[in-house]
């Protein structure tokens, strides 16, 4: 850990930005400078593209970047989960091979965890990896894979030992997605979008050096990935950039990149319920004059505000380096409640028009999209029920339920 003061960090990053920031650089070249200087991920270790700064000082760096409008490293999608996992469990050659290209945005990543037969019970994966010579041969099916259609690499959880107990027979790999044995197909959702994929592996190959951690320790590695995923899901918007011109080649490239990354997920704001539209909609429909609706709006706003402040409390505790309190585990469950309440109140405000969809429906279809997208929130990234189990067992330390999946995995009942 660095012992630099906030003022020293501020001075140093300002000086570095003054010397290096140039909005006319190609995006990848600029991000290369960020990676090599450590200013792109200042909280990462010094040996690996970081500066070993504590989180509070990393925020300071972010603020200085925002002041001059400097673009940061690539952060979209699964890439930072991949990076965090590799930083913790990867070999040095793996870190050397993958981390820099994650930060420059040259490589895109996806996550092959969920399967048709194992959703909540991720450790029940049955995609198999068999070692043949220098390669692991992969066969099976993954589902709900974000970005698989344009990803370069995937984080793969696969079974390498069928006689070991469930959690001990898994291994964790980095797989090259662009190879003949990997067939990516779109999966159409109930809201009409197709944001995810199902991916079929038929004798796909993973070189031995792409095993992350040891054989049989895949679950441990996957837990790291999942922990980072949940931590990122506190529902808080990233701090908006405040000042600085947005002209220059680099900004155009970044916008294009963001546009491409976000394209399949345009409905995500609707999935969260769009609490931001509630009051305006109530005023435009006149529903704000109905005392019952007013009560329901107030209930929703109280819930949404409380959820936002709870996430901020969790973040504040983390930034002060305090042990995380219960508030840190609650964000996802709170977000589900907010989304469901939003859908209910939007319906209340919209009335009969909630039967419509498409361009002629309220707000050019946005309200309809909210109503048919909200059911995803309480499932994606861990169902509400699993979240409650986690909260009850890890935070409240309640005893676990009796299990029926011990012993050799081969004998465990499954789909």
């Amino acid at each position, binding site marked *: 850990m660095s012992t630099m003061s906030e003022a020293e960090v501020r001075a140093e990053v300002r000086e570095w930005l003054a010397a290096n920031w140039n909005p006319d650089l190609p995006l990848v070249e600029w991000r290369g400078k960020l990676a090599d200087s450590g200013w792109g991920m200042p909280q990462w270790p010094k040996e690996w593209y970081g500066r070993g700064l504590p989180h509070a000082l990393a925020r300071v760096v972010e603020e200085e970047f925002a002041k001059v409008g400097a673009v940061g490293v690539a952060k979209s999608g699964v890439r930072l989960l991949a990076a965090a996992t590799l930083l913790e469990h990867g070999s040095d050659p793996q870190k050397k091979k993958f981390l820099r290209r994650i930060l420059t945005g040259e490589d895109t990543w996806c996550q092959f965890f969920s399967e048709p037969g194992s959703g909540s019970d991720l450790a029940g994966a049955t995609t198999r990896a068999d070692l043949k010579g220098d390669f692991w041969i992969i066969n099976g099916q993954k589902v709900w894979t974000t970005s698989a259609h344009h990803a370069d690499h995937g984080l793969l959880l696969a079974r390498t030992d069928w006689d070991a107990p469930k959690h001990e027979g898994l291994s964790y790999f980095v797989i090259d997605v662009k190879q003949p044995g990997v067939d990516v197909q779109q999966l159409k959702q109930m809201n009409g979008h197709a944001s995810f994929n199902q991916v079929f592996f038929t004798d796909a190959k993973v070189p031995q050096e792409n095993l992350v951690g040891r054989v049989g320790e895949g679950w441990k590695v996957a837990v790291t990935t999942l922990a980072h995923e949940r931590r990122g899901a506190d529902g808080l918007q990233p701090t908006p950039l405040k000042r600085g011109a947005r002209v220059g080649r680099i900004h155009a490239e970044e916008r294009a990149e963001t546009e491409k990354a976000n394209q399949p997920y345009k409905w995500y704001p609707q999935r969260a319920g769009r609490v931001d539209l509630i*009051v305006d909609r*109530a*005023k435009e429909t006149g529903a*704000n004059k109905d*005392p019952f609706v*007013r*009560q329901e*709006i*107030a*209930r929703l*706003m*109280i*819930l949404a*505000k*409380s*959820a936002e*402040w*709870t996430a*901020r*409390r969790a*973040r*504040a*505790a983390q930034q*002060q380096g*305090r042990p995380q309190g*219960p*508030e840190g585990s*609650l964000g996802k*469950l*709170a977000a589900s*409640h907010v989304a469901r309440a939003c859908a209910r109140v939007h319906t209340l405000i919209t009335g009969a028009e909630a039967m419509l969809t498409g361009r002629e429906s309220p707000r050019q279809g946005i309200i309809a999209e909210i109503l048919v997208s909200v059911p995803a929130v309480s499932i994606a990234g861990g169902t509400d*029920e699993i*979240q*409650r*189990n986690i*909260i*009850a*067992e890890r*935070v*409240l*330390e*309640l*005893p*676990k*339920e*009796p299990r029926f999946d011990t012993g050799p995995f081969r004998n465990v009942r499954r789909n």
Partner: protein
Amino acid sequence: MSTSDESRVEPRRRIQFAFTDEQEQFRSAILRFLNDRSPTTEVRRLMGTAEGYDPVVWRQLSADLALPGIHIPEQYGGAGFGMVELCIVTEELGRALLCAPYFSTAVLAANAILNAGSEAQKSALLPDLAKGARLATLAVTEPDGNWDPMGIKAVATPDADGYCLEGVKSYVVDGHVADLLIVAARAPDTVGREGLALFTLGANAGGVERRPLESMDPTRKIARIDFRAAHANLLGNFDDGAKPILRTLDQAAIALANEMVGGAQALLDSAVNYAKLRVQFGRPIGSFQAIKHKLADMLLEVELAKSAAYYAAQAAALDDPEWPALASLAKAAASETYLHTAAECIQIHGGIGFTWDNDTHLWFKRAKSSEVFLGQPSYHREVLMQRWGV
């Protein structure tokens, strides 16, 4: 804006989402004190007495911890802290269910004097409250139970050297033991926001008749007070007299919200502990998902309400323009959470939870009375909507 301009700007005071180390230490000191002096055996003993509090414990929490004057400026004999610290106190008192005239004296009366009083009145009245030497309370609501001061009917008519009070106040917290009464009343022939002001008088003054009410929550006693030609002094003045009354009630709603989340936490802890101990069907009931999920939901609800209560206290301490709306937000959130947590705590305890000997009902009754004290959740939701301009 250039960088040099920016560095001259004072660091803006901001909402803090974590308590400082000093605040946490303060909380721990209160917690230790209450663990020692206010176990439920004491709560049960005191709730059965007419006074409803232990004067020895009151003197100790005044002398050793300076709690009654925690938020009163030093120039008036207080400790000079603010709303955030006051709310740390009420949260801990709510958790322990301390039987003491704190909410009346420190939260209601001291804030009313701070908000409405002249310099001379603040200097004359506050030091005794800060020391815990004198008990006081605020009487706003009347037998119709309307918490909106616009509905006040009590009348204060000027007389030779002050005012003559006529009217009835009810649901007056600690009205039976207060030495000093602060009463909200209006000038003759005024309605609504016009003509409102606060008045002070000794509780034993002529024309004051106090009658303790049989309250559902015996740990917080309430009284009805009749004023018949009682002689009172004006606190502050009549210029927009509704303002200090509203301000005091909003501050009280925030302090009460914090008290409620403290109580809700105590109930949650109790339910979790019981779920780990109680065995049915050969396993602790806490291993069943039906119970686990209930407890996880309770935790979420308590943490959400805490966030609202803490945020409102921070906003009030900073005098953020939005804080009165947030007072209603926090009050509504904490009221529903406290009562729901209490009901679920009884449910998780099963039959034993419905018995007098089990402690859950002590908090349940505080939750039920706090739900309506200072205004029900539905009232505060409507106030919130109005204050947000919806």
